């Protein structure tokens, strides 16, 4: 494809990328780009060369232009980003996606050598965060961020600092509760042993002592560790819902009351060990269920995609940064290369080539003429442009989507999990059996009736049932996690199993964003190649750039005339040849090339002689055959914001009747809603902001991304693009997982039946309860994890 390169493969000393076209030497080291060389020179001058000693090529490539951080000088913006500040020092936490190795840690914790004002910096590797404290007098937020950017660690600063919030938000003391429960459980077990082994009659005083001590250990269990269950059961009861917390809370309460009664009346030893063990295991189950991905966020919306502030020019022509929320209609904003247009605005000045791929799914940048409205969310490629805002940020075309009810409704009306469904019937049956045994014994023996009643509630306490779902799901989650499929929480596995309709987005989902495949049709000799390359090199049009990239390394000839007709093509005079490159209409030569109609085309003509054409197609992800496989079992739709010029190419993959093009974000949302109203369980797979509404509305929204640290819209799961081909396996695996839960439910039920046969007779000994409860728990835990891993092996995950 390319000229046979005489260069042997050289790797950039900083980032390890191949140094392809031109490499830059410095200090006997090779660098792929200016950015990498800059970083190296900064570090080596500050005596931080050891950065390169820990790992080979530790840096991230820095060939992109960094954004401007001037807005950080605005006190109002800085205030929102800073954790703490007083007149001496400032504490700030940055999220830096580039953190990936030990060298990163070393460098970021030695920032002091680069800027003495920074006297503390600490990296949290999994969260990809660095906590920095600097002296207010000597440094500022702006210069700190500049420094980080200069050494190749550009912090990601967005309005919606979700990752930061995540770490602050979760403080329900679960770990502390487990610690207390474990402490009580251990001690109670120890103190209960003499009772099990039998206490001789002359040591009866010990029995009472142990009994009271056990009761004392139960108090923190009831009053601290188990309170969530009582609270949840009560809240659900008020809403007339019987969830699994109700029998659990009932079991805990009965265990405690009966223990207290038996100990205080010197009637027995009670069930203190079962009570503590139950709460301890339940809390462990809760911990297992809670899996956090520190580096992922499932709650992102447009605010984390949009910039924090924009440059506004006032009447006098001076520029200053304004926070996004304060942008008013009529203000003039300045958007530079690679910046995002934050609000619907009219183009006033400059050559706008706006890349809307993330918003509409359209892959080719759009040229806008002066006076035209440019919708928010597009990314300017090229020179700086000036626009006048016509709508505030929250009312813009794209962001309006977030006012839809899909974003405000709670998640509760999604698929009910198995344990939610079953626990209702379980509770009813449990109460029936309990009251049945109570009334059976009541006429003959009051004490025995009460004993039987409480024993039923104790023994049938659905501990194993409550644990089966968390343990199965967390095992499944970690398996999916290894396969680059990250789920928001454990309930998503069950949702995955119930899906019957799949809706795909096109751009970025089944195609790879930013990787266009350009193919030349027709024969071009080396001289013609030079001519065409030289012509295209004059143009900044995205398509010309693609062609130049394709022929990279060709030597450029001088042009003596050049003209560009917007929307049509370019023509240039070189060496007495007239070279024309452009659309089919532009090239009027009488050729009969049949349009392939599966992408954008650029036609080439030299001296009115048709040469050939380039077809530019988006590159599809690998393994799309799976969609055919899925179509057999599921209803598969394609929903694209793009124009339909790839319809034919896609019809080998999708059913032509089930492909829909030119759908706005709102259309997508409505499409999903429509499917749901017909009783379908819809899974949406998308990547861009335009899919955000559909992802939220669907029963299961999956955001697909090539880099999990990049922006992905709010969703239930994040799928790495490389794992798309494993989708059918994921489906089968999730179904297996649900079967594992069914089986473990049967196992725990059979334990309950065995226990109940003792309990209804009213002769439940504490020893049996103390054995049965942990035994069933251990069985369930080992069964679920083994079965889940076996299922994964069978599905080759």
């Amino acid at each position, binding site marked *: 494809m390319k000229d046979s390169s005489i260069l042997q493969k050289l790797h950039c000393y900083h980032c390890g990328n191949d140094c392809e076209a031109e490499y830059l030497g410095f200090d006997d080291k090779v660098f792929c780009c200016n950015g990498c060389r800059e970083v190296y020179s900064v570090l080596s001058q500050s005596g931080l060369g050891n950065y390169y000693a820990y790992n080979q090529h530790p840096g991230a490539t820095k060939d992109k232009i960094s954004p401007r951080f001037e807005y950080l000088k605005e006190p109002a913006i800085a205030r929102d980003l800073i954790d703490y500040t007083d007149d001496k020092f400032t504490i700030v936490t940055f999220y830096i996606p580039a953190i990936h190795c*030990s060298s990163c840690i070393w460098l970021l914790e030695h920032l002091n050598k680069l800027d003495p004002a920074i006297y503390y910096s600490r990296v949290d590797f999994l969260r990809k965060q660095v906590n920095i404290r600097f002296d207010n007098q000597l440094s500022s937020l702006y210069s700190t961020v500049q420094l980080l950017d200069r050494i190749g660690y550009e912090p990601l600063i967005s309005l919606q600092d979700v990752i930061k919030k995540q770490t602050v938000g979760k403080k329900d003391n679960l770990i502390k509760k487990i610690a207390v429960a474990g402490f009580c459980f251990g001690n109670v077990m120890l*103190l209960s042993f003499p009772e099990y082994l039998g206490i001789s009659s002359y040591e009866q005083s010990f029995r009472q002592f142990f009994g009271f001590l056990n009761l004392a250990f139960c108090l923190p269990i009831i009053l601290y560790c188990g309170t969530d269950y009582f609270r949840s059961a009560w809240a659900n009861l008020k809403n007339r819902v019987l969830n699994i917390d109700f029998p659990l809370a009932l079991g805990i309460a009965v265990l405690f009351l009966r223990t207290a009664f038996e100990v205080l009346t010197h009637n027995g030893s009670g069930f203190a060990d079962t009570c503590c063990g139950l709460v301890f295991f339940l809390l462990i189950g809760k911990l297992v269920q809670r899996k956090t991905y520190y580096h992922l966020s499932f709650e992102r919306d447009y605010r984390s995609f949009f910039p924090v502030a924009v440059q506004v020019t006032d009447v006098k022509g001076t520029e200053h940064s304004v926070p996004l929320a304060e942008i008013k209609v009529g203000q003039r904003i300045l958007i530079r290369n690679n910046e995002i247009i934050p609000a619907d605005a009219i183009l006033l000045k400059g050559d706008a080539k706006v890349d809307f791929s993330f918003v509409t799914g359209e892959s080719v940048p759009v040229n806008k003429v002066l006076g035209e409205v440019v919708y928010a969310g597009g990314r300017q490629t090229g020179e700086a442009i000036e626009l006048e805002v016509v709508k505030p940020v929250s009312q813009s075309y794209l962001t309006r989507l977030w006012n839809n009810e899909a974003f405000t409704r709670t998640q509760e009306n999604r698929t009910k999990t198995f344990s939610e469904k079953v626990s209702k019937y379980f509770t009813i049956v449990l109460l029936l059996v309990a009251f049945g045994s109570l009334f059976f014994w009541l006429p003959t023996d009051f004490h025995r009736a009460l004993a039987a009643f409480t024993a039923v509630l104790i023994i049938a306490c659905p501990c194993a049932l409550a644990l089966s779902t968390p343990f199965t799901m967390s095992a499944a989650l970690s398996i999916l996690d290894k396969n680059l499929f990250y789920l928001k929480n454990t309930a998503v596995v069950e949702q995955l199993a119930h899906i019957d309709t799949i809706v795909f987005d096109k751009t970025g989902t089944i195609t790879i964003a930013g990787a266009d495949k350009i193919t030349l049709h027709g024969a071009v000799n080396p001289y013609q190649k030079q001519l065409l390359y030289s012509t295209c090199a004059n143009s900044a049009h995205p398509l010309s750039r693609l062609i130049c990239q394709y022929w990279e390394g060709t030597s450029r000839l001088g042009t003596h005339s050049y003209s560009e007709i917007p929307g049509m093509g370019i023509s240039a005079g070189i060496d007495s040849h007239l070279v024309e490159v452009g659309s089919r209409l532009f090239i009027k030569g009488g050729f009969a090339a049949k349009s392939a109609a599966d992408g954008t085309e650029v036609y080439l003509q030299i001296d009115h002689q048709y040469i050939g054409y380039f077809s530019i197609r988006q590159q599809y992800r690998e393994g799309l055959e799976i969609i055919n496989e899925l179509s057999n079992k599921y209803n598969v739709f394609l929903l694209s914001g793009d124009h339909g010029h790839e319809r034919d190419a896609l019809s080998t993959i999708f059913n032509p009747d089930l492909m829909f093009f030119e759908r706005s974000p709102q259309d997508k949302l409505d499409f999903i809603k429509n499917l749901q109203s017909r009783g379908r369980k819809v899974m949406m797979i998308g990547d861009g902001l335009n899919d955000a509404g559909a992802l939220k509305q669907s029963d299961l929204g999956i955001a697909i991304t090539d880099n999990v640290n990049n922006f992905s819209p709010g969703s239930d799961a994040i799928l790495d693009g490389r794992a798309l081909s494993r989708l059918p396996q994921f489906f089968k695996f999730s179904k297996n997982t649900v079967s594992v839960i069914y089986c473990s439910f049967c196992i725990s039920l059979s334990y309950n039946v065995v226990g109940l046969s003792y309990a209804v007779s009213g002769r439940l000994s504490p020893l049996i309860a103390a054995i049965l409860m942990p035994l069933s728990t251990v069985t369930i835990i080992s069964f679920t994890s083994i079965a889940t891993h076996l299922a994964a092996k069978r599905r080759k995950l």
Partner: protein
Amino acid sequence: MSIIYFLIGCSVLLALLFLGAFFWAQRSGQNDDLYTPSMRILLDDEPEEEEKK
């Protein structure tokens, strides 16, 4: 056998001490980041330039 009262008192006290120590560790943030220290410990202050090449 009354020594048992004393012994059990000691053992509970000791256990409480450990529980308190755990609470203190939790509060002071020692368990917030359980991964980075495992990497940090491998970093010397001044490693040789040619190390790991």
